[in-house]
């Protein structure tokens, strides 16, 4: 668990994924990629890709949690997939204002 800060760059411990935190929740949260917690850019990785977290990351895509308070930009793609608190993150779509005719 860690308190994330917008602007921080992190990387996956188990694949080539690199990310930048764009928006972070106020509370501590554990963000994983490929099943392993993200590590600081200079830090050494290790471990293996978890079988159930192999969806892959795509460069330039924004990944968000359901609450919408966590947003992570993928700056280098990899084989692992991102999750926060054990829940897979999804690619961010448009946030349309509700309207009706």
């Amino acid at each position, binding site marked *: 668990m860690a308190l994330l800060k917008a602007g921080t760059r992190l990387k996956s411990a188990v694949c080539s994924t690199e990310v930048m935190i764009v928006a972070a929740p106020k509370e501590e949260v554990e963000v994983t990629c490929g099943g392993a917690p993200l590590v600081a850019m200079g830090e050494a990785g290790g471990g293996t890709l978890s079988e159930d977290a192999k969806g892959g990351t795509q460069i330039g895509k924004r990944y968000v949690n359901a609450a919408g308070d966590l947003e992570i930009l993928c700056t280098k793609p990899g084989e692992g997939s991102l999750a926060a608190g054990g829940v897979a993150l999804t690619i961010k779509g448009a946030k*349309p204002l509700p309207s009706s005719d």
Partner: protein
Amino acid sequence: MTAVMQGVRILEVADHTFVPAASALLADWGAEVIKIEHVERGDAMRGLASSGLALLNSKVHVLLEHSNRGKKSLGLDLSSPDGLDVLYRLAATCDVFLTNKLPSVRSKLKIDVEHLRAHNPRIIYVRGTGHGERGPDADRGSYDALAYWCRAGIALSMKHADDASVPSPPGPAFGDSIGAMTIAGGIMGALFHRQRTGEATVVDVSLLGVGLWSHGAALALSLQLQRPWAPMPRSFATGNPLVNTYRTQDGRHVSICCLQAAKYWPGISEVIGQPDLATDERFAEAASLLKNAAAATQILAAAFAERPAAEWRERLAGFSGQWAMVQDTLEASADPQTVANGYVVDCKTEDGTPFKLVAAPVQYDEEAALPGRAPAFNEHGDAILTELGLDMEAILDLKVRGVVA
């Protein structure tokens, strides 16, 4: 289909249907359309639920597809200098700039004619508005239900004196869709002019103007007669028994519109199984038929009420006059003429979900234009920026700063 718009590049900053559907048509005909969407929300259409239908929860947003088929999407923050710079760089590569932003918004965002032309003197600048560029309401927003329908006189032209309420447009984007076709035609004319003369024009189309034009024949009469156009009374018979809509036994309607009644009277007498009426002296001549129109109308009304629509369809098949079954939208889509001419086409979303759209009603070289699908929000963002010459580092920088989606 001959892609007559192939090689034309269009840059669009527009929401909803009226203006986006114009470039959707041009995309059907081969143009490349780059749709700039709000960096977070996307086209406001993405959030629109229509008339109580829960579109937001359905798998295909067909209204979005109708007006954005075949386009590319880039989410861009036009309120930031860097976002504007991207827009200008894109404009430099485009033939047409298309927007539905109001005058004050265009100038605030610096996307008005002067700014765009500074980056591309040859760009055709196209504005779709509610009420036109001049006049006290030039800067007021509108929708087709307002400017096209209510303000242009169409709604009251459909309201019977005893109606307690004013008729609404028949469906979503009714005025928008014909307005979009009008814009598309305007753009094609401007491209032709530029090709011949080298001059880039400013093109204006408004919902009010399109509403007036749609209703132009009635307006001309109304102005000539100096009275507001209004529907014929419910009990009104036209004076031509062969210009009327008759109810069938099963509650359907057959509409007949034979302006030369006397010519077709023998034919319709055959159709209703009363061939003797052709020589009946009340109806045999044009003048007598006109004089006895009420009686003829009653005979036809009684006859049509005796058989179901399906039977009339068969009986009328060989009739040389002009007629139509009054059809609902599903029947219209399945109409053999619709099918034979490819007026409704099969489309698919990216994940293969099928849906149907009405094709562009102009066909080149005898083939319907098959629409591509609408883009997901910012689907082509990175590709568009890469094509502009930005490397991934630069694109990521724009993303981090929220300039692009």
